């Protein structure tokens, strides 16, 4: 272990990426994510990697996908306006099954919005932003240390499931400096490569895992990659049965492993009457609010998902069976609350506390919500 040092959230992201084996970064400047690129350009070359600043966010993710097909572990980072531009290629990466990591450091929106203020307004875009039916894996850290850990996890999940993985955090986490001890060695997962001769290779044939092996361009396997619906040879088809089966496999490789992918920090819920549901920086405030409520003799707990998608429905349902009320606190006008209501399924009352004014939700604000016996909305 290296010694504890003061690290910014965006720096922790870059360090996590390098620890995970990232060797390609393609990006475009945007507040409040630019420090990730600035750290990557300094650190990647010595780690044997390549950095490129592209002409826009569309090109950034295209370059990342190209690099990943060439065998690299590749990433990009952006914020809301750039994340909107990246939706096209998130869909391509889903369809072509290209591992890659996309970081969205959320700021106030819509449009140019509040460039230097935090928000959690992109959580539904991260799930549904690209067109068509598609699975999504979206991770949401709450601290600088967790940014590092979940960046590593994002790469590992991308490689394991041959899919884009989105790391979503807000401006406060991106710019906060905390004293953390970052591990030097982490567990690394690499994509499965084919073990058949090139002549026998079917690029999109999957075994029971649902994840086809992926060789790198230039390694002797000549294959076709397309965003069109395609068969096991990777070749375009408009056969509805084949197209439908492809989509179901792409969905299934994530949905069949939800228990492995989803994670949530369940804090002081065993005897709780009230539970917060909060993620990202609001999860930090909610944790503090739980402690303050407990000091005042109110039994409050916290569901803090670290994967927003797939949604931790099981964890929410279990907590809802215990508590009378779930307070969903988020820095938007109500996005994840719908999912919480669905998972709660009437087992507990669900109320929301939302704000979208660029200010983080504070612990005392949340204590006030509990004391008032309701939600903000």
């Amino acid at each position, binding site marked *: 272990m290296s010694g504890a040092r003061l690290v910014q959230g965006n720096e922790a992201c870059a360090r996590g990426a390098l620890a995970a084996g990232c060797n390609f970064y393609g990006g475009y400047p945007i507040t409040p994510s630019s420090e990730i690129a600035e750290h990557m350009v300094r650190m990647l070359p010595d780690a044997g990697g390549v950095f490129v600043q592209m002409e826009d966010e569309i*090109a950034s993710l295209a370059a990342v996908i*190209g690099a990943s097909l060439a065998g690299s572990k590749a990433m990009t980072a952006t914020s809301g306006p750039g994340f909107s531009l990246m939706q096209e290629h998130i869909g391509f990466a889903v369809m072509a099954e290209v591992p890659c990591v996309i970081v969205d450091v959320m700021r106030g929106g819509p449009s140019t919005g509040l460039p230097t203020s935090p928000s959690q307004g992109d959580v539904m875009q991260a799930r549904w932003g690209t067109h068509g039916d598609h699975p999504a894996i979206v991770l949401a850290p709450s601290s600088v240390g967790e940014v590092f850990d979940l960046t590593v996890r994002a790469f590992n999940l991308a490689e394991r499931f041959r899919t884009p993985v989105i790391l979503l955090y807000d401006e406060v986490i991106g710019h906060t400096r905390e004293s953390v001890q970052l591990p030097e060695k982490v567990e690394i997962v690499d994509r499965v490569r084919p073990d058949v001769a090139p002549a026998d290779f079917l690029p999109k044939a999957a075994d029971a895992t649902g994840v086809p092996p992926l060789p790198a361009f230039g390694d002797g396997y000549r294959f076709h990659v397309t965003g069109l619906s395609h068969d096991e040879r990777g070749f*375009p088809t408009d056969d509805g049965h084949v197209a439908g089966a492809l989509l179901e496999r792409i969905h299934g490789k994530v949905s069949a492993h939800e228990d492995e992918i989803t994670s949530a920090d369940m804090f002081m819920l065993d005897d709780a009457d009230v539970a917060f549901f909060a993620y990202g920086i609001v999860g930090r405030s909610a944790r503090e609010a739980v402690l303050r409520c407990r000091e005042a003799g109110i039994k409050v707990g916290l569901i803090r998902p670290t994967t927003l998608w797939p949604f931790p429905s099981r964890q929410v349902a279990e907590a809802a069976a215990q508590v009378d009320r779930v307070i969903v606190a988020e820095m938007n006008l109500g996005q994840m609350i719908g999912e919480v209501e669905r998972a709660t399924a009437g087992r507990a009352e669900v109320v929301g506390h939302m704000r979208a004014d660029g200010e983080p939700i504070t612990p005392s604000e949340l204590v006030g919500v509990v004391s008032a016996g309701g939600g903000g909305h």
Partner: protein
Amino acid sequence: MTDVKTYLREWAMPHVLCPGCAHGIVMRGFLEAINQLQLDQDKVAVVAGIGCSSRIVGYIDFCTLHGTHGRAPAFATGLKLARPDLHVMVITGDGDGLAIGGNHLIHAARRNIDMTVMLLNNSIYGMTGGQAAPTTPAGAVASTTPAGNTEPNFDACKLMIGAGASYVARVLAANPIEMSKVIADGVRHPGFSFIEIVSDCPEYYGRYNKVGGGAEMLTWMARRDAGVAVPLSEKRFVEHVPSSAVPPGMVTGVLERDIRPVFTGVRKQDQS
């Protein structure tokens, strides 16, 4: 020399191109160029966007990436930077490369990244049914310009020279032997090479503008008296190929050739 059929995915045939479309001639010409160069088939990566010309990559037996509309140079940039040992090429069309993908094309040219872009210009959007493109000549009829196009068109080669491409050429699908030679020349060029290949779209452009089918369009294109070849700029003009006659105002041949630093990304430079 190898039989060019070695480079075809014959199992994927028949192809989607229309009768009379010269894109098939271009595909053959491209494969002849690869054959002339005797490149390692496993080390050739061809990236395409969306449109008729981009569908060519489905039928050629290399590592092929059929990406999104207009973004092929950006995909190719990541590919080349991550694997410099690959011969990276892009097949794009005039709508793909000059309209939706114009930004990516000019920046790839500016960086002088080592790749070859072949832009098949048929002056119209074929795949979507004959809409006007940035290359549709003023006055020409397309499904979205029923009374004739009122916009001026891009000169792709001038655009690329302006963007800093270190190798720029224009050839005609009607002159396939010259086309293969120029493609091979462009692939050999260290840095960014851009080759506009003037193709045809008899199905839409030919039909809407009553200029005949594929044979008539190619014959017209190859006519020695079809127009006066005016160099883009005497200073820039490097090597004109006088044997090819051209449509009015279209200069063919190698229009720019310069040796400039090649962009390889920000990386440790002492790697051998």
